[in-house]
C-alpha cells in the first residue's frame, strides 16, 4: 500500500509541480490541467501504439502540454479572457482534441479510451525494468524519484534565470513588471506552457503506469494537484530555499496519495472517499492557523505567568 502510494505519488508530484507554476508562480488559477493531463496521456499512449520509444513519447507529450498551455496563455493575454474561463475553454476543447489524438492510434473515429494492456512491455517502466532487472514496482519508484528530482532541478534552475525571475515577478506584481520592461504577456504564456508541459508529462507517465488512457481520466486532477501543493506548503512552511519548497510539493503529493490509499485500505465506505479528501485538504489548509492559535495561547499563558 505504501509502495503503491509512493509510485503514484511521484507521478502526481510532477502534475503538482506543474500546477504550482501556474497557481503559485503566476497566481493564475489554470483549469486547463484537467484537459492537459489527458492530452499527455493520449499523446504518449498513441505514440506507444504507433511503436514510438516510450521516453520519446513522454517528451512529446510534454511538448503537447506546452502547446495546450500556450493556447490558454494566448486566450488570456491576447483575447483578454479571464484566467478561469481561458482555462475552461482549453479544457473543454481538449476533450475533443484528445479523442482525435487517440483516433490516430486506432484509426477509428471516436476513440475515447486507449488501452496499453497489450503494450505493457513497451512502457518506460518496462524499459527501466529490462535495463536494471529490478521489477515493475521498483522501476516505478526509481523512475518516479529520478524524474521528480530532475523536474525539481530543472525548475530550480529555470526560476533562477532572468526569464524565470521575470515569470515569478509577473505572478507577484504585474504592474511593476511592465514598469521594469517585462512583457507580461510573454512571461505568462511561457509560465503556462511550462506548467501544462509538466502536467502532460505526468499524464504520459500515469497512462503507462495504469495501462490505459481514458478521455475522462483528468476529472479531479486539479484537486489532487492543489491538495498536494497545500499539504506540501503546510509541512514545509518554514522552508526558505526554493528547492526545498519544491521538494515539499513532491512530499505533499506522495503523502496525499498515501492518505488516499490508506483510506481505501482501511476499508472505509467508498462513498466517504470524497469527504475524506476534502477533510485532508481542509486540515492541511487550517494547520497554519491552528499552529498560530496554539502559539498565541502559549504566549498568553506565559504572559499570565510573568504577570
Amino acid at each position, binding site marked *: 500500500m505504501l509502495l503503491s502510494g509512493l509510485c503514484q505519488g511521484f507521478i502526481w508530484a510532477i502534475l503538482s509541480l506543474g500546477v504550482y507554476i501556474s497557481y503559485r508562480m503566476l497566481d493564475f488559477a489554470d483549469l486547463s490541467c484537467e484537459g492537459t493531463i489527458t492530452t499527455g496521456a493520449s499523446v504518449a499512449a498513441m505514440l506507444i501504439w504507433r511503436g514510438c520509444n516510450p521516453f520519446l513519447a513522454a517528451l512529446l507529450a510534454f511538448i503537447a502540454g506546452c502547446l495546450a498551455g500556450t493556447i490558454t496563455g494566448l486566450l488570456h493575454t491576447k483575447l483578454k479572457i479571464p484566467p478561469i474561463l481561458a482555462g475552461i475553454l482549453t479544457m473543454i476543447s481538449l476533450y475533443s482534441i484528445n479523442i482525435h489524438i487517440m483516433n490516430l492510434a486506432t484509426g477509428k473515429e471516436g476513440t475515447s479510451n486507449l488501452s496499453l494492456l497489450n503494450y505493457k512491455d513497451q512502457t518506460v517502466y518496462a524499459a527501466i525494468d529490462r535495463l536494471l532487472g529490478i521489477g515493475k514496482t521498483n522501476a516505478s519508484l526509481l523512475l518516479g524519484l529520478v524524474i521528480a528530482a530532475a523536474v525539481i532541478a530543472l525548475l530550480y534552475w*529555470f526560476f*533562477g*534565470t*532572468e*526569464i*524565470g*525571475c*521575470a515569470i*515569478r*515577478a509577473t*505572478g*507577484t*506584481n504585474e*504592474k*511593476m*513588471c*511592465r*514598469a*521594469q*520592461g*517585462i*512583457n*507580461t504577456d510573454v512571461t505568462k504564456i511561457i509560465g503556462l506552457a511550462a506548467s501544462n508541459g509538466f502536467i502532460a508529462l505526468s499524464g504520459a507517465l500515469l497512462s503507462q503506469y495504469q495501462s490505459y488512457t481514458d478521455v475522462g481520466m483528468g476529472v479531479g486532477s486539479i484537486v489532487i494537484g492543489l491538495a498536494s501543493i497545500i499539504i506540501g506548503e503546510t509541512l514545509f512552511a518554514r522552508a526558505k530555499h526554493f528547492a526545498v519548497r519544491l521538494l515539499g510539493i513532491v512530499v505533499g503529493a506522495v503523502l496525499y496519495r498515501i492518505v488516499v490509499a490508506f483510506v481505501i485500505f482501511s476499508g472505509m465506505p467508498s462513498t466517504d472517499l470524497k469527504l475524506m479528501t476534502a477533510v485532508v485538504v481542509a486540515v492541511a489548509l487550517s494547520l497554519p492557523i491552528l499552529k498560530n492559535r496554539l502559539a498565541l495561547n502559549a504566549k498568553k499563558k506565559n504572559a499570565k505567568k510573568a504577570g
Partner: protein
Amino acid sequence: METNIMLSLDRISKTFNPGTINEKVALNGLDLRIEKGDFITVIGGNGAGKSTMMNAVTGVFPVDEGTITLDGEDITGLSEYKRAKYFGRVFQDPMTGTAPNMEIEENLALAYRRTKSHGLRWGISEKERVRYKEALARLDLGLENRMHAKVGLLSGGQRQALTLLMATLERPKMLLLDEHTAALDPKTADKVLRLTHEIVREDSLTTLMVTHNMKNAIEYGNRLIMMHEGQIILDIRGEDKKKLTVEALLAQFSRASGSEFANDRALLS
C-alpha cells in the same frame, strides 16, 4: 534648441469610457515640452489629469490623439513594457513598485535588466550583488545587510526608497514620480523626498514629480506646472518659481481656473 528637448507632448487627448454615462475627458489637447535636466513638479486638483498624463507618457494605455516624443524618438505607439527602458517610475502605492514575494536583491536584479532582454542567464550575478550592496548603502536604511529579505517585509518608506533605487539603478532618460510620498507618514515622506533630490541631482536626471503637497512642489525642482481639467493652466519656472508661496499659488490657481483649488490633502499639508 530642439535637441535640448527630452520629452515633448503634442496635443494629447484621452477620454475614458467614451459614449457612456461615465465618460470622462482626462486629457484635453495637452501640450508640454520638457528640457533635458528639468526637475518639474506637477500639482493640480482631484481629477486634473496628473496621473493620466503620467500613464499616457509611460504607455499604460494608448492615447486617443496626439504624439509623444522622447529624446527625438516618437514613442506614441510603443507598448508599456517597451517604453520601460527609458523611464524610471515610482508609484503612489508602495506596493506597486516592487515584487513583495521576492528578495530585495532579486527586485534590484529585475530593475537592472529593465533595459535588457531576458534570457536563460542566471538571474543575478556576484558582480551585481556587490553593486547592489553599495547602492543600498547609499539609502542609509540598513537594507544592504538584508539583501535576502522579502520586500513584503519592508515598511512603506523602505519600499519607496528601494523603488526609487530600482528606478535609477540603470540611468533612465526620465524619472517619473507619481505622488510617491503620498502614502507615507510626514517624517518618512521627508526622508524619501530628500533622497529623491539627492539622486536626481547626482545623476542629473530629467524628472517629472506629481505631488499633492504645494510646499514640496515649490521647494523642489526648477519648474512647476499646475493642471486643471486635462490641461496645463500654470507653468512657472526659474526665478518666478523661487519666489512662489503657497498663498500666491492658490490665488493664481483661482484666477487661471475660475474655481477654488479642490484637493483637500494639498490644503491640509
